[in-house]
């Protein structure tokens, strides 16, 4: 019974690790005020960035370079999936057509899903959300189209061109900030042009947060749709 010995050894090791981790977290009291850096961000976020959503201001403005790294990681993953699953001729191998409820519902719901996704990433500085759930919602709309119709494919050329252009424009936004302000990803809309200083809490405020979140939303949406398309097609054998 080698496998039973291995299983019980694994469970005992995991219980020891779990007890040790729980002992460490007993020293971190749950629900007490322990903010140090967060207090500075919460007090100065409306003056320095112009957005009312503190989390998106931290993601895009205060730590914008890490978000550029994350967009790069997503790009590498999408390219990697496309490179690993590349064949010379690919086609979809679905055989069951979607039911009439699915087809009719998709045909009517798809534009509204796209509009909802765009609403999420345009209002990233006012309501919770931002670029990443907005892009994921757009990719879910395309997934619904894949499920309903067995001959549907996304238009490859326009998606790849869009993805490349918006990826480049993120770096261009940062370089314009470097040219105007003095450091990469300087918020030149809020701090030099002073657009929307009197408009806090409405759409035309927030510096370059809506611009960058539009870029991120389009990029994530097209990338995840590309990953779905690559994983669904199989090789045509002659």
């Amino acid at each position, binding site marked *: 019974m080698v496998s039973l010995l291995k299983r019980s050894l694994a469970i005992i090791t995991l219980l020891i690790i779990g007890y040790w*981790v729980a002992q460490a977290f007993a020293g971190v009291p749950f629900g007490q005020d322990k903010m140090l850096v*967060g207090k500075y961000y919460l007090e100065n976020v409306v003056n320095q960035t112009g957005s009312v959503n503190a989390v998106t201001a931290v993601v895009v403005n205060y730590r914008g370079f890490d978000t550029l790294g994350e967009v790069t990681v997503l790009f590498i993953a999408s390219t990697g*999936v496309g490179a690993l699953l590349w064949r010379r001729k690919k086609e979809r191998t679905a055989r069951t057509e979607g039911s009439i409820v699915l087809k009719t519902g998709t045909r009517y719901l798809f534009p509204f899903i796209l509009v909802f996704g765009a609403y999420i990433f345009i209002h990233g500085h006012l309501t919770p959300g931002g670029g990443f759930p907005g892009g994921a919602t757009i990719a879910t709309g395309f997934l619904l189209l894949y499920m309903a119709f067995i001959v549907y494919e996304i238009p490859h050329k326009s998606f790849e061109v869009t993805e490349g252009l918006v990826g480049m424009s993120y770096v261009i936004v940062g370089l314009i900030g470097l040219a105007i302000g003095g450091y990469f990803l300087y918020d030149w809309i809020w701090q030099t042009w002073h657009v929307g200083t009197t408009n806090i809490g409405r759409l035309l405020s927030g510096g370059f947060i809506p611009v960058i979140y539009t870029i991120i939303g389009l990029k994530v949406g097209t990338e995840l749709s590309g990953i779905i398309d690559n994983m669904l097609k199989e090789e045509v054998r002659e």
Partner: protein
Amino acid sequence: MIHISVYYFGAISLILIGLYAVLVKKNVLKMLIGLSIMETGVNLLLISVGYISGRSAPILSEGVTPGRAVDPIPQALVLTAIVIGVATTAMALSVAIILYEKYNTLNVEEMRRLRG
């Protein structure tokens, strides 16, 4: 017995269950399910550290002053971590598909025997 909150307990159990699946199971896809459950547990642990009881979400609209908002920094970290988690899961699944096409099995012990 040590006394921790229920959120810490839930997050640590998710990490341990995911680690059990990676250690004991032999199917590649089952190991990837365990890895994904572990990532969900770690994100839950990070956000429950930043919670302050009695306060509300860090969106400073009317009525929410900076003295009545939760810590916004762990939420910014976890927002990045969730997206990177799905990217690595997608790449790992493509590698699993290629392994199946080459060795015609998904059992890791069989794959070690078919070397070369």
